[in-house]
């Protein structure tokens, strides 16, 4: 029997979005085709360690922010 996933509301980079419940941060990044090694993820004002991406489940009402790394230079 297939499990019906509920939708939850989150605020992603300032915009409200609906996502399936039970997703981890890693699942969300995969869904959005974002390589986890290239972004910083913050949930409810706390920056997550990459090691926690798999184990952190997105909750209803979470404020999620992500930014791509900005770097470079001469060499």
């Amino acid at each position, binding site marked *: 029997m297939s499990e019906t996933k509920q939708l939850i509301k989150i605020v992603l980079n300032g915009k409200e979005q609906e996502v399936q419940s039970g997703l981890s941060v890693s699942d969300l990044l995969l869904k959005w085709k974002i390589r986890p090694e290239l972004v910083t993820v913050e949930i409810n004002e706390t920056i997550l360690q990459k090691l926690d991406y798999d184990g952190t489940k997105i909750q209803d009402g979470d404020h999620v922010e992500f*930014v791509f790394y900005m770097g470079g230079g001469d060499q």
Partner: protein
Amino acid sequence: MITIPKRVYTEMIAHAKKGYPNETCGILAGPPPKADGSAGALVAEKPNVADVFYPMTNTDNASISYFMDPKEQLQVFKDMRQKVLEMRGIFHSHVASEATPSQKDVRLAFYPEVSYLIVSLTNLEKPVLRSFHIKEEKVTEEEIKIV
């Protein structure tokens, strides 16, 4: 083309010189396009204007590379949202080479919709500022208009 007020240009160069001989970095922001009311189309009233400069910390603290502090980045993104601004450019300095994107600059360009501005400080008295779009590792130079 990216349009930068003289005041913002001055802030960028001052930030780059203050951090010399290390590379420095910053984020440029500007107003979003405004609706012209015709069929919901969006037309930029001031296309690609960057009238706000956020000086950022180079956490590499080095003369050959820069890396922005992710915590500062998040703060700036929230500030831009609060002030209804959009990111227009990512700025950094080269202290010993031309104002052209290095391989590393190209590899680490993850925002194809914004301008990548580089100032060369090989001659501190005559900084050279250039701007590029970098999309899928393809580099295209654009004109800078200082107003």
